[in-house]
């Protein structure tokens, strides 16, 4: 079997048992990236020398009988939103081009401490703003299943790289679906944990009250393994949750007997592709056949989610992106006539159109006199949406929905209409507003394009998501399908 098709769990076991060296595994992935990625555009940066050196170091540790950690020699890659010391970090924005951070973020640090080998940094929508990866400042990513199609976004490079075997696993971030939606469109497993479960220190902020870090992998087991590594309290993040991290992998074999699946009626309405709905309903039946019970639930404020989200997310983004001012790092406009000119041209040149659009919207809604009508109102809607979920979870243990209303869309299809693009986030946004964990896993195909099933859990109940996803994966083979490449 090709080393680039193995899961992270398999690779770490093979490497730890010295059946294959970390160097061989890393080399195989680097070669594959060299062959395939020119066309796919997943990587913004490949750290060949660093990866090989780290792999050799891991092999050395194993040779001396030391434990290199649960991700021993596993080749991983990071969405370019993760701050990596000395390695260029751009958020796919020209405003950060060339920035080599002087510090390391917590999630990437924890991955490396666990023995992972960092192959490089992955393409994304600029500052994580987008659902198609077409907003990258450095070119789009193509869906490995069909290169005329988008991989989803904003973690499009991460999802495509995992699907194409250009890394064993990747980290992404999810503010309104940015892990789950590309995972669905690329046919991989993607998890957005509970808000606060994974530290955001060293993760470039888009919308601070919604952003959360999570893994993209080819199997549910890998997602559980990576979450065990990156989750947990961090003294550098005041919003990280103090709860200890359970061994999520233990949930995988527990089966779904007795689990109550909530099916929100508001999620199965007009606008959803027939093939997507059929695949999701089939998946629900499969889970029922394994012992789960489906119950209809209601999330009555679903229709207000997108409006609330685009107020909160853009307001916070306009604030978080104020630091890109050309003073301390990043791009600065040439020959400014004065300070104001420096600010205005630096930011106009450095940011792409979608980022500017969101900064404008966010600035608008925070203006004096508008706060209550927009930001304040959206926060109240957020409360109503949280209550919807709390009520639904009185009747069920997890909620099952499609991840995306469509299996995919072509490059360029939606770039002219930002609002239509925003509306595509309809199924993923509520998780972020309510801070809940959500997992997407493959559950079917629409022609050549994969379809994603979304599982939503109670706060901090990632284990139940792994339990259901693990049972579903064990009973189906969607996750074993790979795009035809090279």
């Amino acid at each position, binding site marked *: 079997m090709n080393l680039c098709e193995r899961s992270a769990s398999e690779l770490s076991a093979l490497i730890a048992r010295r059946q294959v060296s970390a160097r061989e595994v890393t080399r195989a992935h680097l070669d594959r990236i060299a062959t395939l990625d020119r066309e796919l555009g997943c990587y913004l940066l490949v750290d060949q020398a660093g990866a090989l050196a780290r792999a050799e170091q891991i092999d050395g540790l194993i040779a001396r009988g030391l434990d290199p950690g649960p991700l021993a020699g596993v080749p991983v890659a990071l969405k370019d939103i993760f701050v990596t010391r000395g390695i260029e970090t751009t958020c796919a924005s020209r405003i950060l081009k060339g920035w080599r951070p*002087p510090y390391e973020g917590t999630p990437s640090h924890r991955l490396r401490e666990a023995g992972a080998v960092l192959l490089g940094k992955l393409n994304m929508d600029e500052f994580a703003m987008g659902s198609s990866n077409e907003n990258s400042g450095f070119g789009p990513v193509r869906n490995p299943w069909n290169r005329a199609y988008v991989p989803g976004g904003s973690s499009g490079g991460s999802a495509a790289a995992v699907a194409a075997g250009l890394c064993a696993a990747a980290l992404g971030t999810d503010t309104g679906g940015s892990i789950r939606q590309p995972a669905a469109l690329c046919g991989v497993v993607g998890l957005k944990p509970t*808000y*606060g479960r994974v530290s955001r220190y060293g993760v470039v902020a888009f919308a601070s*009250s*919604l952003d959360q870090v999570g893994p993209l992998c080819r199997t549910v087991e890998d997602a559980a393994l990576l979450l065990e590594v990156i989750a947990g309290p961090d*003294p550098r993040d005041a*919003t*990280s*949750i*103090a709860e200890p991290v359970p061994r999520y992998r233990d949930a995988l074999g527990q089966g779904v007997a007795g689990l109550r699946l909530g099916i929100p009626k508001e999620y199965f309405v007009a606008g959803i592709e027939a093939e997507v709905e059929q695949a999701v309903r089939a998946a629900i039946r499969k889970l029922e056949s394994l012992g789960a019970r489906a119950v209809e639930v209601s999330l009555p*404020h679903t229709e*207000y989610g997108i*409006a*609330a989200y*685009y*107020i909160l997310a853009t307001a916070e983004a*306009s604030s978080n992106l104020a630091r890109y*001012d*050309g*003073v*301390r*790092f*990043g791009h*600065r406009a040439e020959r*400014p*006539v*004065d*300070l104001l*000119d*420096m*600010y*205005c*041209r630096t*930011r*106009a040149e450095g940011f792409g*159109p979608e980022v*500017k*659009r969101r*900064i*404008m*919207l966010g*600035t*608008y809604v925070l*203006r004096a006199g508008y706060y209550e009508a*927009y930001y*304040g*109102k*959206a*926060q*109240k*809607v*957020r*409360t*109503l949406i949280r209550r919807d979920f709390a009520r639904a979870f009185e009747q069920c243990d997890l909620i099952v929905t499609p991840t995306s209303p469509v299996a995919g869309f072509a490059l360029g299809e939606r770039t002219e209409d*930002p*609002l239509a693009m925003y509306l595509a986030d309809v199924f993923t946004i509520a998780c*972020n507003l*309510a*801070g809940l964990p959500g997992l997407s896993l493959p559950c079917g195909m629409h022609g050549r394009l994969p379809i994603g099933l979304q599982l939503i859990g109670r*706060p901090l109940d990632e284990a139940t998501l792994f339990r259901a996803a693990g049972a579903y994966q064990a009973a189906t083979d969607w996750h074993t399908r790979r795009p035809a490449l090279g």
Partner: protein
Amino acid sequence: MPITRKEVEEIALLARLALSEAEIDLYTRQLGDILGYIEKLRSLDTEGVEATTHAVPMDCTLREDELGERLPVEDALRAAPRRAENFFEVPRIIAAHDEE
């Protein structure tokens, strides 16, 4: 039209974005669409509903007053677009606005 061209210009200045005439036109239209969509929230009664600032209820963790890692001046200035000795350099700030 929920947003005027003039408002777009004002916001662009507040956000420190130099926009071309074409961009101002584009954003006036697109922001108008999005704000029009957002209007739907107005119909929702939120009287007496408290605001959610953090989706997961949490208290502020505090740190002890201890010195941590400091960034060496060279590491900080390496990324600066312009520096002068050990300072970050910017176009002259108008004197009337200055503290010094």
